[in-house]
């Protein structure tokens, strides 16, 4: 039996987008028809809840549970909003772009279903500026969806109305943080917002708002069409569905693969990515993008799902792995990562704006041969400084993960930089 790849199997291999007809032929918008004809919004929510779908944007929050907080009924504040988070800026992550470029209708379909399930009136796709091709294809697909009656005032004659807009960002990692995103959409500085109230209750313009990742939403049409049990069955472990896994760095075939949830790191790296490039050896991996802890050799057989990766001391994150090899300096790599976070810190909370900047300078100095005894203690103090709850949002805690784990797994390399006053990988 071939493995099912609901999210990607219809994407044309030639780099073109699957058009409306192609999408419909493969069963697209069928779930929507079914939902609008025979399912209440609550039952769509129930189905999604039963499927065990968890957010693919990094935090892994159960999607059905998130939706269940949306105030429903006649006298709730309106308009209600749903937003597809297509800001994908987490370094090492390139899955949402592929989904949007290859099958834009799938996202739109999922977004309409999410909107219906939450009885939303307006949907936005919040996409990063650099994704030009995805923008073009989504814009065309939205127009097609309007003409086909999937969007507008009376969708498929059901009486349900939804407007959908593509909103192009102006750049910043913080725009992907769901409350920063709301501020960005409102034309403000994308600082994060205080929670509670959660966006589901008071989000965009103070109205109930659902924010979901592109990949999360892309799963929804399939769940509604084929059911929760089917979705559960796709996975190899307790966490349901398939997952887009990626690998970059010095592997033979960097790329992206839709595989059953719970495929092991080893299988992904060896079978799909073709193993390490010639002449280099594996040293470690960031399993789910820049803001996850390094895993090393001993973790290669960890199944890539939310539960197991967490048990191993990291996070599934976005499921796109960045591989560290032995010809690449772990201090340099960490320095690059922390520099990214420092640069993207919104400047709201002190541990983040000051600590990340300080850590970057320590790491850069170390990499340039100016490390000092005591630097590692300062760095590890910073990683604790950025713990969740101690900073305002999850950006700085995200930064602490690679740094903390690098200090743990590659401590010798850090110490050597300080001792030898130069980076052994630089000649």
């Amino acid at each position, binding site marked *: 039996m071939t493995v099912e790849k609901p999210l990607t199997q219809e994407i044309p291999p030639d780099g073109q987008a699957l058009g409306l007809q192609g999408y419909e032929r493969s069963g697209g918008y069928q779930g929507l028809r079914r939902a609008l004809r025979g399912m209440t919004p609550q039952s769509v929510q129930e189905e999604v809840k039963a499927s065990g779908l968890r957010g693919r944007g990094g935090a892994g929050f159960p999607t059905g549970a998130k939706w269940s907080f949306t105030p429903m009924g006649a006298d709730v504040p309106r308009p209600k909003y749903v937003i597809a988070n297509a800001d994908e800026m987490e370094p090492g992550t390139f899955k949402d772009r592929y989904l949007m470029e290859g099958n834009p209708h799938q996202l739109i379909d999922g977004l309409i279903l999410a909107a219906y399930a939450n009885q939303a009136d307006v949907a936005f796709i919040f996409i990063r500026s650099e*994704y030009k091709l995805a923008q073009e294809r989504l814009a065309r697909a939205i127009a097609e969806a309007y003409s086909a009656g999937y969007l507008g005032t009376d969708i498929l004659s059901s009486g349900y109305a939804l407007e959908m*807009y593509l909103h192009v960002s*102006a*750049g910043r*990692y913080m725009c992907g943080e769901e409350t920063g995103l709301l501020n960005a959409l*409102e034309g403000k500085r994308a600082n994060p917002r205080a929670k509670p109230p959660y966006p589901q209750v008071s989000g965009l313009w103070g109205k109930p708002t659902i924010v979901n990742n592109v990949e999360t939403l892309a799963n929804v049409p399939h769940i509604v069409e084929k059911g929760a049990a089917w979705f559960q069955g796709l996975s190899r472990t307790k966490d349901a569905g398939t997952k887009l896994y990626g690998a*970059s760095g010095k592997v033979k075939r960097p790329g992206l693969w839709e595989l059953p949830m719970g495929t092991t790191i080893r299988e992904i790296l060896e079978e799909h990515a073709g193993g390490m490039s010639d002449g280099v050896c594996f040293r470690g991996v960031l399993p789910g993008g820049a803001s996850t802890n390094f895993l090393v050799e001993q973790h290669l057989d960890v199944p890539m799902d939310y539960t197991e990766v967490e048990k191993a001391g990291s996070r599934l994150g976005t499921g796109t792995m*960045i591989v560290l090899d032995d010809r690449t300096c772990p201090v340099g790599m960490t320095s690059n990562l922390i520099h990214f976070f420092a640069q993207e810190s919104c400047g709201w909370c002190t541990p983040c704006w000051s600590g990340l900047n300080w850590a970057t300078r320590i790491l850069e100095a170390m990499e340039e041969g100016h490390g000092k005894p005591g630097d590692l203690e300062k760095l590890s103090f910073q990683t604790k400084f950025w713990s969740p709850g101690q900073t305002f949002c999850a950006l700085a805690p995200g930064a602490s993960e690679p740094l903390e784990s690098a200090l743990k797994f590659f401590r010798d390399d850090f110490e050597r930089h300080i001792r030898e006053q130069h980076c052994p990988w630089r000649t």
Partner: protein
Amino acid sequence: MLTAEERQEIEGELAHYPTKQAVCIDAMKIVQRHRGWVSDESLRDIGELLEMSPADLDGVATFYNLIFRKPVGRHVVMLCDSVSCWIMGYERMREHLTSRLGIQFGETTPDNRFTLLPIVCLGACDHAPAMIVNNNLHGDLDPDKIDKLLEECQ
């Protein structure tokens, strides 16, 4: 003064949003698309249209990295400096670009042809190193490919 076209595009955006402020980022990007950057004067003009002060707008503009408050060259080259590209040879690409163009990040060539900027992960990690030239993504860079791409920009 905003051109009729710019004004029309901005006003078109207003229909999708409940507040004028929500359009401000789009408005600045529209002006930037037409003029390459957003001058103080444009900021004032946009402000008048959207009932925002120059400080309101500049506070927003300076938050985002893709709104240019300084003039840029005819071609904007943005090299990804994030982790996968860094592993795959970003530093070599940067050296090649800076020496070829004779400018550092944040600078524009004296002939106004190129502006060189760093950019965060472009979601092209499987084709690292990557860069964007005038909105078009190019992956699997090497010095030859970079030369060819620069060549095409007149």
